[in-house]
């Protein structure tokens, strides 16, 4: 299990390939990647991500451990960036490895649902005409109910 909270970019391809290689052929590897949206005309210039040093790492570790307790997983990887990101940049990723695809998929969705609403990150969208904190969505909180 690896949990990283970092300002620096990470190499998505290298991380996914390295994770899959390191899993000793578990059979099924799922990855999720979050990217700063890059829509023409949106006026979005950057995404600023604030976090709570110390608590962030602990929260992500606890979420990853909980996933490992609930599903039969070979490995779990979580990387989340903070700081100022440009449109198109990779914000974060999770990866799960399991013998069966159902476990790998469910664990990755669980990680994302909890990470989204229980890990101390806050996003601010910097646009040409001003900056705005991203509001939490009711459906993100509701997504936790299924677990």
């Amino acid at each position, binding site marked *: 299990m690896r949990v990283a909270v970092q300002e620096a970019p990470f190499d998505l391809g290298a991380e996914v390939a390295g994770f899959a290689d390191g899993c000793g052929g578990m059979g099924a590897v799922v990855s999720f990647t979050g990217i700063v949206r890059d829509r023409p005309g949106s006026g979005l210039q950057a995404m600023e*991500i604030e*976090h709570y040093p110390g*608590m962030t790492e602990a929260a992500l570790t606890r979420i990853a451990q909980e996933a490992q307790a609930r599903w039969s997983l070979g490995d779990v990887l979580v990387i989340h960036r903070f700081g100022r990101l440009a449109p198109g940049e990779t914000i974060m990723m999770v990866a799960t490895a399991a013998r069966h695809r159902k476990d790998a998929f469910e664990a990755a969705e669980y990680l994302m649902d909890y990470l*989204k609403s229980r*890990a101390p990150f*806050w*996003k601010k969208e910097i646009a040409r005409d001003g900056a705005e*904190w991203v509001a*939490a969505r009711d459906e993100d909180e509701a997504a936790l109910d299924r677990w």
Partner: protein
Amino acid sequence: MDVLYFAWVRERIGLPKERIDSDAATVADLVDELRAREDRYAAAFADLTALRVAVDQQLSDFDAPLSGVREVAFFPPMTGG
């Protein structure tokens, strides 16, 4: 104890962290003390349903006791991922 503010709570209050000596028994009592200080605190804590609190880096409730606590943090609902 250390009191931390994140995201728009930090912006509204105007600082990320401060040392506060308080006899508040619970988080809610601490919030009342802060609200009474200045308008910027009253504005930040106007609607507690829009806020979350962590006590010693664990998500917590506003009725959590503060005895022995070293760090309290206030912030809006999280938006990671």
